[in-house]
């Protein structure tokens, strides 16, 4: 099960944070800080999996953004790497060559959260087809 998803830039600013487990605000900030520290200093040749408290964090860097997923210790890391990649592909499709600023400014359409909610729910994968998600987003847009 995914415990939280974080998108952070190199300086540590969180661009997207979605938690599937309850945490106090102060705890959330601590977690974000720690994960950032863990992830930003790692050599790119190293594995994409780091141990974090009693779970593990699977991360990947795309340009200036770190996509981090915190999962249970028993989960299949390679699968979640694929998961991250699929998410990035969907975002890419939406914003055509998505970059960090897109995520920041389109927050107001809360687009990114919407996409995420169609992709993952309750810490588990909801849909594996890019096309299906994009279609769905299109339908939701029409309602606005």
């Amino acid at each position, binding site marked *: 099960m995914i415990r939280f998803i974080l998108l952070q830039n190199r300086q540590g600013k*969180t*661009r*997207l*944070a*979605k*938690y*599937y487990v*309850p*945490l106090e*605000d102060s705890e959330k*900030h601590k977690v974000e800080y720690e994960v950032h520290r863990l992830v930003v200093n790692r*050599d790119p*040749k*190293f*594995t*994409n*999996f*780091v*141990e974090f408290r009693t779970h593990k964090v699977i991360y990947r860097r795309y340009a200036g953004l770190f996509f981090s997923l915190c999962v249970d210790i028993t989960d*299949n*890391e*390679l*699968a979640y*790497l*694929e*998961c991250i990649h*699929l998410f990035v592909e969907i975002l890419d499709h939406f914003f055509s060559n998505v970059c960090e600023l897109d995520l*920041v*400014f389109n*927050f*107001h359409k*809360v687009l990114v*959260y*919407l996409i995420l*909610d169609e992709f993952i*729910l*309750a810490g*588990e*994968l*909801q*849909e*594996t*087809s*890019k*096309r*299906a998600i994009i279609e*769905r987003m299109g*339908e*939701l847009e029409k*309602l*606005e």
Partner: protein
Amino acid sequence: MNPFSSGTRLRDMIRAIRACKTAAEERAVVRKECAAIRAAINENDQDYRHRNLAKLMFIHMLGYPTHFGQMECLKLIASPGFPEKRIGYLGLMLLLDERQEVLMLVTNSVKQDLNHTNQYIVGLALCALGNICSAEMARDLAPEVERLLQFRDPNIRKKAALCSIRIIKKVPDLAENFINPVAALLKEKHHGVLITGVQLCTDLCKVSPEALEYFRKKCTDGLVRTLRDLVNSPYAPEYDIAGITDPFLHIRLLKLLRVLGRGDADASDSMNDILAQVATKTESNKNAGNAILYECVETIMSIEDNGGLRVLAINILGRFLSNRDNNIRYVALNMLMRAITVDAQAVQRHRATILECVKDSDASIRKRALELVYLLVNESNVKPLTKELVDYLEVSDQDFKGDLTAKVCSIIEKFSPEKSWYIDQMLKVLTEAGNFVKDEVWHALVVVISNASDLHGYTVRALFRALQTTAEQESLVRVAVWCIGEYGDLLVSNAGMLNVEDPITVTESDAVDIVESAIKRHASDLTTKSMALIALLKLSSRFPSCSGRIKDIVVQHKGSLVLELQQRSLEFNSIIEKHQNIRSALVERMPVLDEATFGGRRASSLPNTVSTSSGTAVKLPNGVAKPSAAPLVDLLDLSDDVPAPSSSGGDFLQDLLGVNLPPATQSEGTNQTPKAGTDVLLDLLSIGSTPAQDNNLSTPDILSSGQDNKPIIASLDLLAAPSNMMDLLDGLGPAPPKPAENGPAYPSIVAFESSSLRLTFNFSKQPGNPQTTMISGSFTNLSSNLFTDFVFQAAVPKFLQLHLDPASGNSLPASGNGTITQSLKVTNSQHGKKPLVMRLRIAYKVDGKDVLEEGQINNFPRDL
């Protein structure tokens, strides 16, 4: 327009915040915005509610408190329109979590939305519910969600499925209700619904054993078929990733099969084929393929045994291990740890590769590999493995050294085949990483060293050499200092050389040098310095010639601000100066520490109250400083009435020595506990004489300081060539050598004569004591060279008791220009039946060269 009115568009606010140059500026902007939003909330402003909440969410993400917005979310959710609801639910998920009581207020709205006609709104509600519902909400809304599992729209069905996962996690009792709907979901064709259904099924089985049974019986075959169809399916562009159709679904199905097959032979059987197919046919050049293989291997390892499949799995892992991608290697190492329990042999084959991984540059891989290596060690491969690990210790990172050292020490201890190997390896570890070695480990090393008596010489020389090259590792310094103190004489005399050793000449002053440098080191802490002081005391007894210099060193700490050092310094100084008679007895060789006792003690967390300085916690306080009896009495565990300075230490030492003195033997002079101590010492060293007899010999108070004219020699440093039984404690029966007064006179004899030396004996007996003979021996140097370091030793058969007084000197001038005299006392228990015999050993130096002369004296007068 006022940029900070509630009418500010989100985009503008974002821009304003980004334009801030300092944190203080940003805080100011955010504060203004929050104030505006709060005002708008109070006014119940409808129009901009949507926008305000969006702003609030952004501010929340920046890290500012936003509790005042929570009620806004509720109001938005209650609004009829989709956009408002959407923002409201989003705000709900971001700003609240299940622990807030406010959440309860939403239950009703959510319930209504779940029954809404607009399926998008239903979707919103399900989403929010699935992410943050609490246990009460779950219970309330479970029936709705159940119903939705059969909704016509697949999007709703899949959301409902995931929402149910959360519900059964929060309220496991409700699991039964979901079993039937889920069985239907598993037959779906739509991938999204299928994958969510599979996930729900997995979690159901984890939560409820009945569900597990049900699914195992009814659905295993169906699932196997589904997986087979998936594997064999043609290219489907919608789900294709790296040439594989929907790898996520593959993985989820494999996981569910694992849960169903574990512990059940039938289910496992039905999966064998498909597992084999997946394992062999999946492409492994892309991450997606590897992810599937990984899951497949996990499943094979968990279900019931099938030899062929297991071999297949381990081969896949072997391939992973040699993959260049770090991720794959990490994953393989992880799995191998689990595979060891299943098939250790197969894993051993990959030992070399795993060892390489220990040296990898990636910390995660190193850690995993080290744990795996630790599990792989057994008696046959311990030596090469340890060698590799110790070699790596030299080049490893500081933060890794601690882990590595602990594991290496543990391996060495558990699997060491012989003592010399153990000592060697531990020395290497101490030299490299002594600072990371825990106290128990080097304590255990000391225990082993003291037990390996044939290796004492080798050990102390190796330690000396190690200390000369590197002196930064604290534990190494401590162990070395202890050994040099104990076995310094072996160090100097090169005793017990093993074949593999290079010869090394160490003089006494070298040994003292190195202990002195240990004290002077800045980095030495209290334990090391205290141990060094005791070692010096021991050396001052073993190397009498250095005594003066040692005294100077010890005295330097007289004014130390640390109580322990000051105390030791003063007391040792006093021993060296004034109590030479008992000094040697105090610092005689430690009795062998019992490994079993120490092993047991260590396991039960030895209390550190035994001694003040932690370094000597596990060791008997050798030569406890006070010349008074009490501490030494504790050492020998005697009376209960003597107040022990460290009472818990007393118990411990009592156990250690296993000496339980019955009160009876303490009867003689209980107020003079030293005397009883002597008895016990006798017992301990099995002199073989009863206390009664000893009294005849006017047992001296070994520890009483009043009798300075009682020279006591303790040549406990056993001769390398011990012949017959010799009094271990020669020091125990010294009556002052009384000149032959009124006993019968006996002729003197030339006991021994060689080309360069002559020894003459004069005899006398005390009246009334026919068994005891006083002998006064005098040595004459017949050569023209000066003899230095003159030492005379004698040994007698069992029926005789011998006592040697110290010689008058140890240098013999040439050509008979002076003599050395030495007194002996012999007691013949077979007086009258057997004559005296004695073997001699005389050692001296001529021009720095050692000379040894030996002989036997058979020409004693008959009736001695």
